[in-house]
C-alpha cells in the first residue's frame, strides 16, 4: 500500500496527542501532587489538542474533496472511519474542558468524571483508527487484533514519554510515569514483533485464487491491461524493498522503542528531573512511530495485486 504522508502524520501525531491527553487526564487521579500545577496541565492539554487538530487537518489533505469532510460523520453505523470522526469530534470539547480544569485548578467529583471520560474518549478514538485498518480484508497483514493493539500502544507510549518530558520541564519527577512509559515500550516491542511474525505468514490472495484459474494450473500474468501505471497500481501496488524493510524495522524498534526506554531508565537511575533525557526519549519514540507507520503501509500487500501477478 502507498504510504501517504498525510495519513502517516495524521495517525502518529493525533496518536501522540490522544496519548498525552489520556495521561494528563489520568494525572487527576494518579499524581495528586501535581494538581493545581496550572502551567503544567494547561500547557500539556493545549499541546495535546494542538497535536490532535494538526493530525486531523493533515488527514483532510488526503481527501479529494476536503470541503465535504463534514459528511464523514454520518455513517457511524457501519464505517470505522466515520466512527473515528465522531469520536474525535465528541472528545474535543471534553478535552477542552479538561484543559480549562487544569488552568483554573478545578477539583471535585464532576471534574474527576470528566477527566475519566476524556481518557476513555482518547482510547476510543485511537481504537477506531486501528479498526479502520484491521477491518480491511483485502490487506491480509492488517486483519489481526494486533493491528489495533499496536495503534493503541503507540498512542499510549509516545504520549507517556511526552507527558514524562513535560513533567520534567515543570520540575516534577514522574518516576512512576517513566516506568509506565518503559513498560509500554516493552509491550509495544512484543506486539510489533508478533505483528511482523503473523504478517510474514499471512496468506494473501494468489493469482490462482483471484482469477479462479488455479483449476488449470499455476497462473502468471502474460499481459497487463494497461501500459502505464494507474490509480490501482500506484495506490495498492507499492512494495518496499525487503532489505530496506529490515533496516527500517531495526530503526523502528531500536530508535523508537529501545532508545526511549534506555533514556527513561537513565532518568530514573539519576533520580531527578531530567528534561534533556526525557525530551530526547519522547522525540525518539515519535520518530520510531513515524518510521513504523510508514512501514505499516509500505509492507502491506493488497489483494488486487494478485490480479497483476503478485503472490
Amino acid at each position, binding site marked *: *500500500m502507498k504510504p501517504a504522508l498525510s495519513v502517516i502524520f495524521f495517525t502518529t501525531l493525533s496518536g501522540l496527542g490522544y496519548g498525552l491527553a489520556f495521561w494528563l487526564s489520568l494525572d487527576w487521579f494518579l499524581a495528586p501532587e501535581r494538581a493545581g500545577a496550572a502551567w503544567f496541565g494547561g500547557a500539556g492539554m493545549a499541546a495535546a489538542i494542538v497535536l490532535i487538530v494538526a493530525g486531523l487537518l493533515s488527514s483532510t489533505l*488526503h*481527501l*479529494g*474533496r*476536503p470541503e*465535504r*469532510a463534514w*459528511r*464523514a*460523520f*454520518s*455513517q457511524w*453505523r*457501519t*464505517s*470505522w*472511519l*466515520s466512527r473515528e*470522526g465522531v469520536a474525535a469530534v465528541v472528545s474535543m470539547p471534553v478535552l477542552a474542558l479538561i484543559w480549562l480544569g487544569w488552568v483554573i485548578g478545578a477539583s471535585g467529583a464532576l471534574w474527576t468524571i470528566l477527566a475519566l471520560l476524556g481518557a476513555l474518549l482518547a482510547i476510543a478514538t485511537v481504537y477506531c483508527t486501528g479498526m*479502520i485498518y484491521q*477491518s*480491511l*480484508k*483485502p*490487506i491480509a497483514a492488517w486483519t489481526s487484533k494486533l493491528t489495533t493493539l499496536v495503534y493503541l500502544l503507540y498512542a499510549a507510549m509516545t504520549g507517556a514519554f511526552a507527558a514524562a518530558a513535560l513533567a520534567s520541564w515543570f520540575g516534577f519527577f514522574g518516576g512512576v510515569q517513566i516506568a509506565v512509559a518503559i513498560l509500554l515500550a516493552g509491550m509495544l516491542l512484543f506486539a510489533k514483533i508478533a505483528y511482523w511474525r503473523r504478517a510474514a505468514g499471512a496468506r494473501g*490472495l494468489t*493469482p490462482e*485464487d*483471484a*482469477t*479462479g*484459474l*488455479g*483449476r*488449470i*494450473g*499455476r*497462473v*502468471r*500474468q*502474460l*499481459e*497487463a*491491461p*494497461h501500459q*502505464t*501505471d*494507474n*490509480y*490501482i497500481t500506484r*495506490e*495498492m501496488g507499492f512494495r518496499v524493498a525487503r532489505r530496506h524493510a529490515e533496516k527500517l524495522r531495526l530503526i523502528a524498534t531500536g530508535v523508537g522503542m529501545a532508545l526511549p526506554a534506555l533514556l527513561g531508565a537513565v532518568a530514573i537511575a539519576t533520580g531527578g528531573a531530567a528534561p534533556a533525557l526525557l525530551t530526547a526519549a519522547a522525540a525518539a519514540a515519535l520518530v520510531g512511530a513515524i518510521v513504523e507507520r510508514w512501514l505499516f503501509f509500505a509492507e502491506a500487500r*493488497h*489483494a*488486487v495485486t494478485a*490480479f*497483476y501477478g503478485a503472490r
Partner: protein
Amino acid sequence: MTSLPQNPSAKKLGLVIDLDTCVGCHACAVNCKEWNAGGHMAPLTDLEPYGAEPEGVWFNRVHAYEAGDGAAGRTVHFPRSCLHCEEPACVTVCPTGASYKRAADGIVLVNEDLCIGCKLCSWACPYGAREFDEDVGVMKKCTLCVDRIYNETLPEAERVPACVSTCPVSARHFGDLGDPESDVSKLVASRGGYDLAPDMGYRPTNKYLPPRARPTPAPVPAAAAGEQPTGLLRWVDRLLSL
C-alpha cells in the same frame, strides 16, 4: 446510507463473463469508456491523453494470463470490473453515505455529490473495481450502465451494459442472477460459473465461466531411431541419401 439494504429485492443484476470465448480484444473496455465518458459517472477523466504516459479512469480492465504449463497450459483473457457484490465492504466502509447498494436490483453505485474522496472504499475492494478520479476528486466505478439498462429512449435490444452490447464474440452476458430461471442463471449452472476469490466473503454477483476442458493433444510421435521406411518412402529415402 452505507448500511446494506435491509430487505433487498430478489433481483440481482450482474454480468456473466465467458473466459472460454473471450479473445482479449478490449472492445468491452473501450466501449465502456466511450459510454461512461458521457454517462452517469461522467467525466471519465484521462490524464495526459496525448502525452508520453497517458492514463485515466476505466471501469473495465482486461488482463491476459497463462494458466498451467506445457501442453495443458493455455492463455486466458480476463476482463475485470465491479462484481456488484452482495457483501460489498466498499459500501459499508464509506464514511459519508456516497457509496450505496440499490435495494431494487443490487447495483453498487457512488453518489459523486457526497463522495469526499477518502479512497477507503478502493482499499476495501479486493477486485480493484474502484478507481479514483484525481481531476474531480471523487471515486468512480462501474454502474452496470444503469443509464442504459432502464433507458426507455433506447431500443430494447440496446438496454444492456455497453460492454455486453459491443462484445464481438458474445463472451459477456447480462441478466438477473437472482432468478434461477433466467438465461444467465441457466448459463452459470450449465457451465459451472464461479465467484472470484470466494474466500474473501464478498459474495460477488458477477460470475465467470471457466475455460472449457480441451482434449489433451496426442503426443507428437518422435521418429524412432533405426526405423526403416517402406514402399515409396523407402525409394525417396534412398534418393535423398545419395
